């Protein structure tokens, strides 16, 4: 073998060895994070996983949610894939001089070289736009990143090296087949006009070829230390993603005899999938841009959180790799503070925006669990809420005996009465705490009862036997209290043999639909907007009375992003005579949270500006007299927002059920 080939081989082996060493550390760190994976099995349904890989990795669907930056990335990504062929060809050439891919056929090879030339230019345009975006436009989500500058520089360096190499090669060894490389041809013309001789050109070509090799190998060694790691981890992270959007919180086994800790107090408590998420992050900032907490000056940025968790992983490298979990430092500290963790409203806008399917909220809520269960470390206001849920079975200081007081005069029957009479009902109407105790929400409960009666649907409520789903406790990290309530409720439901449930509260909806199956019950759960849409579609109720209003619709997070239901409420609104619907830009999966989720309804908002006010401002842009919603918390928050704006006489918030009740006889 020629000396240069041997040297090259040595360099390749050296670089590969270094890369492999770094990669193995990352792999072993992922193994050291032994926590349970949320939403279970990530290796099931292989066919669907392959499909998502094709759709989102190869066809970049999630990346293209943002058009301009998306196209920029597609150019760079596909360019990278195509040009890798040339890189491999050059490596082979270095080891076995004279090697080329021309054996595939003259025209095929020419096409290949043309495509590579095109993609080189495409990558350069992409990188050019990336530089422009990062250094001139400076969107907040990108932040400052030396890492990014290095990556973009290396990438452009690689492309320029290729153009240089090709253009000098063209000068050194003229060949008709070179004509396809039009840009390189043009550049070679410049060298020629500068008086570069074929001999010099040949040396330059070789030089740039080596330069390219070194940049590639250098880049490869750099990748594990940089956010460019995503080129290796984004694809597996997509493959192992949660396939459906709806999910419940992971059930913690509180009875585990050997459990020394619950939730995530240390980075080692997270799972391999969490770690893979951290490795996959490209720091694109889309999550931060979408985060309602960040946009109202809270210290929570999902991007920063992922970054800081990754730092925590690396800072504890020695302890993790040697298995000394006692020496792993806690997650909470000066970077990830209590305020960061408590600011989250669980709206999942971050997850919805992420092009590589990172699940930021899983980590936040696992950390909350640890804070509450192990350290009793939570905002003081929550203590009253926990007490109320424990003693009164609702977050409020109301007597559980008053739970069905709202039905006075309405002839609503309880499951106990139904069971005693031997009848059957089609649905259990799960009223929820808000619908039972909150004056405003009681009106929605009554509207739904009215609609159910108009449609002839047989239903019953649990009445005093209904207890809080525990959701406010669960999302505040108090898994112990939540599980107590869930189990008691499940026992009651199983006792009555309940199969179908309709509820007007998205939080109850999500809990019953996606979480209670872990507690021994299988339920068919439908949200009231879904039911009403179905009733309208099937003609069981007919909105005939005009509601002459302009309305804008606010998607609740727990029906929208959590459970992918954007259409049912809109179908309903479209069917109401004379109702004009004005959508705002930030709607459907781009809708902003009202601020009440993640148990924030029960906490004071001390930092920054108010989320509900900001959302109200967005909705007011629709210049509608009615804001329609489908959640008791959203209605509370938006009503409060309108009060703050002093527009109570001009704008009112209505539940979709109230609008339909008004529109039907």
């Amino acid at each position, binding site marked *: 073998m020629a000396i240069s080939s041997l040297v090259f081989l040595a360099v390749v082996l050296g670089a590969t060895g270094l890369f492999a060493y770094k990669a193995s550390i990352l792999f072993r760190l992922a193994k050291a994070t032994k926590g349970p994976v949320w939403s279970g099995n990530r290796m099931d349904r292989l066919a669907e996983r392959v499909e998502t890989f094709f759709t989102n990795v190869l066809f970049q669907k999630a990346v293209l949610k943002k058009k301009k930056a998306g196209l920029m990335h597609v150019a760079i990504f596909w360019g990278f894939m195509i040009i890798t062929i040339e890189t491999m060809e050059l490596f082979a050439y270095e080891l076995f001089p004279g090697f080329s891919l021309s054996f595939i056929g003259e025209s095929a090879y020419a096409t290949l070289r043309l495509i590579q030339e095109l993609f080189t230019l495409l990558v350069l345009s992409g990188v050019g736009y990336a530089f422009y975006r990062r250094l001139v436009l400076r969107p907040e989500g990108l932040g400052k990143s030396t890492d990014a500058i290095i990556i973009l520089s290396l990438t452009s360096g690689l492309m320029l090296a290729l153009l240089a190499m090709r253009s000098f090669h063209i000068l050194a060894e003229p060949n008709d087949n070179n004509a396809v490389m039009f840009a390189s041809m043009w550049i070679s013309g410049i060298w020629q006009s500068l008086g570069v001789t074929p001999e010099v050109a040949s040396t330059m070509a070789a030089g740039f070829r080596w330069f390219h090799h070194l940049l590639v190998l250098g880049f490869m060694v750099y990748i594990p230390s940089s956010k460019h790691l995503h080129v290796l981890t984004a694809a597996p992270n997509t493959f192992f993603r949660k396939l459906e959007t709806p999910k419940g919180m992971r059930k913690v086994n509180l009875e585990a005899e050997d459990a020394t800790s619950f939730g995530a107090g240390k980075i080692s408590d997270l799972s391999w999938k969490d770690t893979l998420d951290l490795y996959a992050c490209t720091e694109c900032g889309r999550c931060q841009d979408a985060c309602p907490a960040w946009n109202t000056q809270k210290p929570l940025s999902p991007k920063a959180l992922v970054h800081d968790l990754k730092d925590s992983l690396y800072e504890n490298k020695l302890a993790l790799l040697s298995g000394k979990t006692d020496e792993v430092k806690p997650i909470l500290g000066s970077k990830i503070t209590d305020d960061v963790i408590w600011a989250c409203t669980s709206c999942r806008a971050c997850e919805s925006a992420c092009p590589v399917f990172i699940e930021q909220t899983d980590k936040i809520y696992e950390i909350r669990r640890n804070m509450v269960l192990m350290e*009793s470390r939570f905002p*003081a206001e929550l203590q009253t809420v926990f007490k109320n849920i424990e003693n009164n079975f609702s977050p409020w200081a109301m007597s559980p*005996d008053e739970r069905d007081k709202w039905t006075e005069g309405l002839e609503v029957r309880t499951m106990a009465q139904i069971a005693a009479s031997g009848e059957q009902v089609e649905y259990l109407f799960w009223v929820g705490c808000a619908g039972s105790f909150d004056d405003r929400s009681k009106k929605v409960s009554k509207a739904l009862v009215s609609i159910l009666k108009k449609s002839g649907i047989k239903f019953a409520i649990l009445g005093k036997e209904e207890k809080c789903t525990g959701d406010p406790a669960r999302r505040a990290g108090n898994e112990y209290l939540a599980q107590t309530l869930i189990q008691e409720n499940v026992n009651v439901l199983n006792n009555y043999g309940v199969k179908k449930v309709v509820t007007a509260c998205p939080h109850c909806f999500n809990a019953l639909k996606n979480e209670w199956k872990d507690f021994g019950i299988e339920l068919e759960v439908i949200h009231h907007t879904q039911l009403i849409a179905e009733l309208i579609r099937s003609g069981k109720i007919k909105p005939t009375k005009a509601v002459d209003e302009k309305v804008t619709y606010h998607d609740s997070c727990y029906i929208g992003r959590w459970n992918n239901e954007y259409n049912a409420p809109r179908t309903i609104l479209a069917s109401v005579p004379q109702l004009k619907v004005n959508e705002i830009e930030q709607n459907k999966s781009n809708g902003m949270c009202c601020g009440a989720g993640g148990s924030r309804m029960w906490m004071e908002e001390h930092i920054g500006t108010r989320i509900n006010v900001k959302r109200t401002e967005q909705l007011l842009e629709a210049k509608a007299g009615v804001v329609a919603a489908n959640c008791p918390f959203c209605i509370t928050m938006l009503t409060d927002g309108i009060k703050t704006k002093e527009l109570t006489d001009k704008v009112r918030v209505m539940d979709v059920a109230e609008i339909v009740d008004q529109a039907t006889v």
Partner: protein
Amino acid sequence: MNIFVCIKQVPATETKIKINGSGTGIDTTGVKWIMSPYDEFAVEEALRLKEKNAGSTVTVFSAGPSRIAETLRTALAMGCDNAVCVDTPEEIDSFQAAKCLAEAIRKEGKPDVIFTGKQAIDDDCAQVSQLLATFLELPYATVVLNAEYGSGQITVKRETEGGTIEIIALPTPCLIAAQKGLNEPRFASLPNIMKAKKKEIKTHPMASLGVTDADRKIKLVNMQLPPAKAAGKKLAGDAAAQSKDLVKLLREEAKVL
């Protein structure tokens, strides 16, 4: 330091009150039982004092029927070291309760300080703290908002009408009855809740302490819900008319002015 706390198990604050058949108490079916909220301040203060004085222990006492074990375990979960229970019938009065606690305390040794809540939210008598202290011949202060611990002495701030504060120096041993605001009670962590489930509670039957029915001084009888109010009336007219109307009604109809 030997720190004692006395607590009482009461129905949850929001319980809907139903009177029992004999009119001597409430119907306890379905009632959720909790530690009387003022007692939580007492337990918390005891625990904080323990944390400031290495080697101290906190013993929690309660008198009542067998269901009170659950509340004693709540106190243990918060961090108390030992629990002592006096098993009594469902209905006893403040005098009997104080005597039970006094005798149980005498059996446990000499405390440096006893913490209680200023009143139990069921009978609202606010007597046991003072009765207990007097039986044990200890100086006491009730409705305590703040306590500062010195050597052999505790200086407390007591709340009285109009925001007036009395500052009193009590030599130890003494008894302090907590008012809301004395501190913020802690939330028991899950590991402590689990540990408390397994702890042993020392139990004395009431009679074994020499307390009997003969010690009873008070019986509550004829317990009733307050009479339902007649529906109120909304006054008509503009503000001027409403004001005139109201003054007239308050003088002539309600006769309160």
